[in-house]
């Protein structure tokens, strides 16, 4: 019966027609997927070129190190750049120990159970809290409740909450990349679990861990919405551009780009915004390159593995 149908000439020609059109559809689809993926890269190139063209004339030594100006043209972003790094540093001081320890707990210690489920669910939930909502939480706690006003510390603590999940995931992935045999070897030599983690697993994971940490740092550097109402949108006019007091207002470069656009009185606001956007972009590129190079170097240096 089946053979009889297959033998019918019309069906035969249908089949070959069909095969040709299917091949064409396949070709078109393949081309479309290649096109879509290339668009991403072209878009990135467009962004980078555009920001460079717009912003490079704004960049000067004075712009990168000078004070912002309230009303006149020619203001710089020195304190803002410093604050960005300072808040990043404070944030890492809180985030790294907590997230790495929690990552070790989840990945190496915790068996399946309610506590692990709870921690993982909390991490996922924290990861989806929008940064503006986190910013308002920081405002409620650090500004309204603690009466700190806008401070670098309040901003850093808010960013800590925002980035704990990403740091924990980075840690988990780095630990997961360590072969099981290292754990067995270490335990087989009579090491305790903690000794194994500290001396065998973490050193072997240092490359991917560093890459992940630097990439997340790049995101912390550019964070804006969570900082406007916690660290503030103005710089503190202390003795110098470099104000280490964590209880002072600390506008970062990303927040400065926002506030310049929003409310600046200076005539060259667009110019400053273009310059700030370019500096932010360059920093993202630097963080990405550093993450890769440093991660590879550390892996080679500490493990002798290419």
């Amino acid at each position: 019966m089946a053979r009889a149908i297959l033998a019918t000439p019309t069906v035969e020609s249908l089949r070959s027609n069909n095969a040709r059109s299917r091949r064409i559809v396949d070709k078109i689809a393949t081309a479309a997927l290649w096109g879509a993926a290339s668009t991403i890269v072209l878009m990135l190139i467009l962004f980078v070129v555009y920001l460079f063209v717009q912003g490079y004339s704004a960049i000067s030594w004075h712009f990168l190190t000078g004070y912002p100006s309230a009303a006149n043209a020619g203001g710089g972003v020195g304190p803002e750049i410093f604050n960005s790094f300072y808040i990043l540093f404070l944030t890492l001081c809180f985030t790294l120990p907590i997230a790495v320890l929690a990552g070790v707990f989840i990945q190496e210690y915790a068996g399946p159970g309610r506590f692990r489920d709870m921690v993982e669910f909390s991490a996922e939930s924290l990861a989806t809290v929008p940064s503006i909502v986190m910013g308002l939480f920081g405002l409620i706690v650090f500004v309204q409740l603690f009466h700190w006003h806008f401070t670098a510390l309040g901003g850093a603590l808010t960013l800590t909450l925002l980035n704990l999940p990403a740091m924990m995931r980075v840690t988990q992935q780095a630990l997961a990349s360590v072969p099981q045999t290292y754990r067995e070897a270490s335990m087989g030599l009579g090491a305790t679990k903690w000794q194994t983690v500290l001396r065998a697993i973490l050193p072997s994971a240092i490359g991917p861990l560093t890459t992940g940490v630097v990439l997340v740092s790049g995101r912390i550097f550019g964070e804006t919405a969570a900082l406007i109402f916690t660290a503030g949108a103005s710089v503190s006019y202390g003795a110098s551009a470099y104000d280490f007091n964590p209880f002072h207002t600390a506008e970062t470069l990303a927040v400065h780009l926002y506030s310049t656009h929003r409310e600046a009185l200076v005539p060259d606001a667009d110019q400053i915004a273009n310059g700030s956007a370019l500096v932010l972009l360059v920093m993202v590129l630097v963080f990405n390159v550093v993450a890769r190079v440093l991660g590879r170097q550390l892996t080679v240096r500490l493990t002798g593995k290419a």
Partner: protein
Amino acid sequence: MVGVRANKAHRDERVALGFLMSSSAIFVLAIVLILAFLAYNGTLLFWQDHVSPLTFLFGTDWDGFGGQFGAAPFIIGSLVATGFAILVGGPLGVAIGLFFSELAPKRVAETFKPAIEVLVGIPSIVYGWLGLTLLVPFIARTFHAEGDGLLAAGIVLSIMILPTVISLSEDALRVVPNSLREGSAALGATRWETMSRVLVPAAASGLAVAVILGVARAIGETLAVQLVLGNAAVVPKSLLAPAAALTSEIVMDMGDAPEHSAFRHALFSMALLLLLIAMGLITLIHLALRRRTT
């Protein structure tokens, strides 16, 4: 001697476990505190300032100082912009995920992947600035309109959610067992047929998670949207008319709304609404993943 050493190692082990567990507990504590503080501050508007939740959710009149707290324009703005982003960025992201998991030669993947990493790293304020100075004038010229509005916001968001959707869909597609690819190919299916009829359905729950996390990123996005929306507190009449979103309105008004005022409380309510949406999306993800395991 060994006994003493072993005791010390044991004490270290217990101390370490204490640190590990308390660090983990911070995660739980953090999310509980965030929920509690926002639940409290986000409902002050209703039980202290006596604004009806229905007025807040469905009212269309917004005047912070004038005591009008209808947030519907912002809710609609957020939903439309996010919906646009998902309709454009969702399929595009899944398609590019397919490209990386099924088509891309190793060399191509190695050059394209870092580009995506960089796109993730670009701060949202810079996306906003690009949108404002590059996209808005383009839309204005093309449609002879103001340029800022939901269309601009939707396009910016589509681009911003791409990295999330791409990498998660790639992961979801990669875990589909090879036997399915081989089985489909052995039946005479073309590569595209295998992708569209076998792989995508097989990875459906993972792809759903990718898109849902894209929604989460889009709905919570603030500055990129604020810069290109035009910030008009009215129900938008078209994609080209100025509008506002929950996030952008919070950032616009928060600096002006005095502490303890109904105005500020209304903004907290909007933040609470965003938080509830985020929690709802997390729950959705768990449902999608549970379907995969059963």
